């Protein structure tokens, strides 16, 4: 039973990063302190990895509902930073389906096509 997983597109603003810092408690200055972040190799603030990864969670929840919450598995690498002003698209492509488990290649990419997160997500779809 393959499921079409619809992409999620979202702009990552500094305001969203700040709101995520407050919600998560992660106020690492590389995310929320422009002066600190300018002095790092990134040259400015970057988004929390878990903020950007949340787009994949949202996408999979949208496709699979409760099945994602009770049986989902995710394994990703954070490959590049996401910066304020980037528009990120989370997408999934079915990689294989066997034994009632669907496995997807998932990624988040910026408006320039740079892949910032990639990995695999699987979910039990039957049984």
């Amino acid at each position: 039973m393959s499921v079409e997983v619809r992409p999620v597109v979202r702009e990552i603003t500094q305001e969203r990063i700040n709101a995520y810092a407050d919600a998560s408690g992660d106020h690492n200055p590389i995310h929320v302190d422009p002066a600190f972040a300018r002095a790092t190799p990134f040259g400015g603030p970057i988004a929390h990895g878990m903020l950007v990864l949340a787009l994949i969670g949202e996408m999979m929840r949208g496709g699979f509902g409760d099945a994602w919450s009770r049986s989902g598995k995710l394994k990703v690498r954070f490959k590049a930073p996401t910066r304020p002003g980037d528009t990120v698209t989370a997408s999934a492509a079915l990689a294989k389906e066997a034994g009632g488990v669907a496995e997807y290649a998932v990624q988040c990419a910026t408006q320039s096509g740079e892949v910032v997160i990639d990995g695999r997500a699987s979910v039990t779809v039957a049984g």
Partner: protein
Amino acid sequence: MTFSLDEGRIAAYLVAIGDTNDYAGTVPPLAAAALGLEALQGEIALPEGSLHTGQEVEHVRTLLVGEPLTMTGRVAQRSERQGYVICVIEFEIVADSGLDRAGAAGVAIRARSTIMAPAGAAPAGAAPGGGA
């Protein structure tokens, strides 16, 4: 470490990420993983400028908003490369209230996070076997 994720905290998380899915009184699994990881990082005291480079999450059962939760974690690996310390943090979140709506019990979330920190700033606590 015991904690719970109440309605207000989950609502703030969903607004921050922009997720409008209906979770129907359950905790978004990545919210549990993110908030659990943040709590553990506080205990390990990773330095400013630490970077998250990899994440694995396994959802074993749904978590209900407000459920009492217990989290256990440890630094599973620690290595140094090119001036950076790479820590692998493993943690589990268990719902203390027993069965969920589907009758499942026990561990709800298993996760494994890879964090990279500047070597000179990495704390002594970031060593294998460190517990939280």
